């Protein structure tokens, strides 16, 4: 199999002595840093930590569901476990995953700037994330919370005696971390671009993070005020959501999903940006329909704000608004499909190679498409009434979020690992991990579509015995999936010391981040670049290389 990887001669190659990792030493130089690259690494470590906690909770869920009875844990413990799994995975892993790690690291470099516009606010965002994460862990250890990740009222305000207030405030704080990340990105992309870097020369990764940032800035504060009202309702009993006082629980649903539906686009859009970069690099072609892909990100962000009610079709909303929101939901499928088709056309007649990031990207394309198409089932009000609150919906959003977003995250981590650390990961082992993840994922979640069609409801510790076969399949698949996630954790850490020296541009990619040393200098560029080439201009890259050769010669 051919490969585009070109590494420097390993006998003479060295990691550059001066880079952002060696620039300063000591724990304080990390904890007080303003460097976007160091903050990205801090974020990477913290979200990996929370991912493994969320993953351990997922393992407990699957173990409990191995048998029809609730025997591993009591039903209310199960409720706490799946609630915490959702809260940690959504608010502490998926939302910050790509933006706060890869986005933080790459966006300033991709636009040709020395740092994000507000380095101190960037650091503050990480501390807020840690405080939110710490409070969530505290809520879990000191008794847990069993509302589900949706904090549904009046369940959360009147009927539960668990740590709703602590968890709600934790998510409030973590939300501000997300707002500050988004705000920083928008200002950086508007105001910090290098000379010549016009909007349509930006890599698509920047466009999709920009779209996600708009959602973070406009959506998250609505969640914040909703959680404040829930906390006030629970602590002092104001009546905004309390039907006994004239309040309306449906209003809570509207406000909650006004954030939480756009939030799924906050999670998926940056992942789509990763896929654009990876597909282009490993098929040696400019992304087909660059501006269509760029605008589809913005379109997803805009449409994303007008579809929230499709989470509420069975909650007693008016039939007419159901009709309209069902139609609007179908509209979101259009920009998503534009992306998938354009990636497919990028592959067409490309020189495709199958390095690990590309394998994950293929996984993304397949699984996201299945996840997206099953979303149409749920957006049509007729089928939704049958399928919602069953395992069909669980399978649907895991296909989009885990099959889509997590695949994209791992794709991006492998793709930019040489840039972040200066070293390559072991290629064969990581290709194996990508395949294992893909197989394990399908084993885990495909049976859940079937379970949902058969009518198995979500969020119960016990189920009728006839569902057991498919549940055993799912749990077995989750074991394989777990191996698929542990492998990168191990070999990526291993590669920090033993990986091959990557050189500046192991993938022969065109982005500005590949034209500087790996790992980059603290100030990214020795001098601010003047951009004349388009994004994904591989001929420009060839000319650059030729010029280098003649100069050295």
């Amino acid at each position, binding site marked *: 199999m051919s490969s585009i990887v070109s590494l420097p001669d390993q006998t003479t190659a060295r990691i550059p002595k001066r880079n952002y990792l060696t620039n300063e030493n000591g724990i304080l130089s990390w904890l007080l840093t303003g460097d976007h690259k160091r903050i990205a690494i801090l974020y990477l470590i913290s979200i990996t930590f929370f991912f493994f906690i969320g993953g351990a909770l997922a393992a407990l869920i699957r173990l409990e569901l191995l048998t029809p009875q609730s025997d591993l844990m009591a039903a209310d413990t199960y409720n706490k476990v799946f609630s915490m799994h959702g809260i940690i995975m959504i608010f502490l892993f998926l939302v910050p995953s790509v933006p706060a790690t890869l986005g933080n690291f790459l966006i300033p470099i991709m636009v040709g700037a020395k740092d994000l516009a507000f380095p101190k606010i960037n650091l503050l965002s990480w501390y807020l994330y840690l405080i939110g994460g710490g409070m969530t862990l505290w809520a879990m250890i000191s008794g847990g919370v069993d509302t589900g990740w949706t904090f549904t009222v009046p369940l959360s305000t009147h009927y539960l005696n668990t740590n709703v207030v602590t968890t709600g405030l934790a998510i409030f704080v973590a939300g501000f971390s997300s707002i500050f990340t988004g705000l920083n990105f928008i200002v950086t992309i508007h105001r910090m671009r290098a000379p010549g870097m016009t909007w349509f020369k930006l890599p698509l990764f920047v466009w999709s993070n920009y779209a996600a940032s708009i959602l973070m800035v*406009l959506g998250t*504060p609505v969640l914040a005020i909703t959680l404040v*009202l829930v906390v006030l309702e629970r602590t002092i009993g104001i*009546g905004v959501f309390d039907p006994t006082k004239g309040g309306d629980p449906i209003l809570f649903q509207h406000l909650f999903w006004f954030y939480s539906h756009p939030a799924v686009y906050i999670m998926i859009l940056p992942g789509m940006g990763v896929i654009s970069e990876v597909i282009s690099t490993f098929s040696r072609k400019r992304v087909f329909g660059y501006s269509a892909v760029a605008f589809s990100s913005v379109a997803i962000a805009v449409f994303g704000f007008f579809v929230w009610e499709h989470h509420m079709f069975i909650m007693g909303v008016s039939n007419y608004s159901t009709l309209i929101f069902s139609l609007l939901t179908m509209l979101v499928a259009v920009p998503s499909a534009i992306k998938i088709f354009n990636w497919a056309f990028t592959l067409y007649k490309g020189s495709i190679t199958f390095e690990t990031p590309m394998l994950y990207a293929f996984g993304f394309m397949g699984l996201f498409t299945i996840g997206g198409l099953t979303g149409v089932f749920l957006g049509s009000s007729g089928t939704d009434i049958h399928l919602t609150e069953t395992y069909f919906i669980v399978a649907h959003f895991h296909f989009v979020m885990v099959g889509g977003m997590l695949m994209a995250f791992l794709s991006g981590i492998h793709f930019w690992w040489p840039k972040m650390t200066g070293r390559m990961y072991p290629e064969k082992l990581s290709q194996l991990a990508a395949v294992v993840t893909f197989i394990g994922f399908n084993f885990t979640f495909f049976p859940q579509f079937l379970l949902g069609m058969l009518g198995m409801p979500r969020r119960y510790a016990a189920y009728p015995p006839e569902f057991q076969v498919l549940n055993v399949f799912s749990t077995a698949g989750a074991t394989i999936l777990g191996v698929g996630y542990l492998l990168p954790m191990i070999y990526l850490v291993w590669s920090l010391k033993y990986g091959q020296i990557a050189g500046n541009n192991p993938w022969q990619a065109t982005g500005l981040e590949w034209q500087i040393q790996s790992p980059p200098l603290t*100030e990214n560029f020795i001098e601010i670049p003047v951009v004349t080439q388009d994004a994904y201009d591989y001929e420009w890259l060839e000319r650059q290389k030729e010029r280098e050769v003649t100069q050295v010669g």
Partner: protein
Amino acid sequence: MDSPTVALHESTHSEHPSYQRHHFVTMAQQRESASFGMWLFLLTEIMFFGGMFTAYLIYRNWYYPAFVAGSHTLSIVLGTTNTAVLITSSFTMAMGVWCAETRRRGGLILSIILTLILGLAFLGIKSVEYHEKWVQHHVPGLRFDAMSFVHPKAEPGQPAEPGLPLDMAQHTEVYFSLYFAMTGMHALHMIIGMGLLIFMLIKAIRGAYDNGNITFIENFGLYWHFVDIVWIFLFPLLYLISRHQ
């Protein structure tokens, strides 16, 4: 020590003022970024209050008589005074920004102190109003009794308002929930703002703004005006419902 000429010479790049952060190419870029960031932050604030305004809109449509009755228990005199106090504080803040731009340290300090005093006056009047609500049993959840809306007492010199049916009277609790949530969030923003004012006051006295590095003051000015504008919407929506009746 902070006189502008000295600061210029201390800088490594002689053409840049010392307060330009290293990652900005020009001072104009730094200023534009800071102000753009502040406007974006205010946009998140609008969305934050927006959730409560949405709730207000819905419940006011559903429970209009309860909202009228609740609104009529508020003191229009105190509310109007507070509006005037807050608008004046916006004026003094705008004067502060102008003084900072024209490098008048004395004027800046005076403006900040006046803004602080007016902010305190606003919160003082607000706490008088809150106390009144507490006495009247109009605090939702903690101390609430809807009976005063079923059998309203006549104010001296005025005829008693007509009583509400019991179920509608109970919905005044929703009105007061929103009243306390909205004015409470507004007051919280004022308190945060006054903390920042004290911070700025200390820095201004030390002369930190004499070198023209006034981005913080300009952005704080925007914040303070935003908090003011929120009140401009809260006042008619909460105090002036159907006053002509």
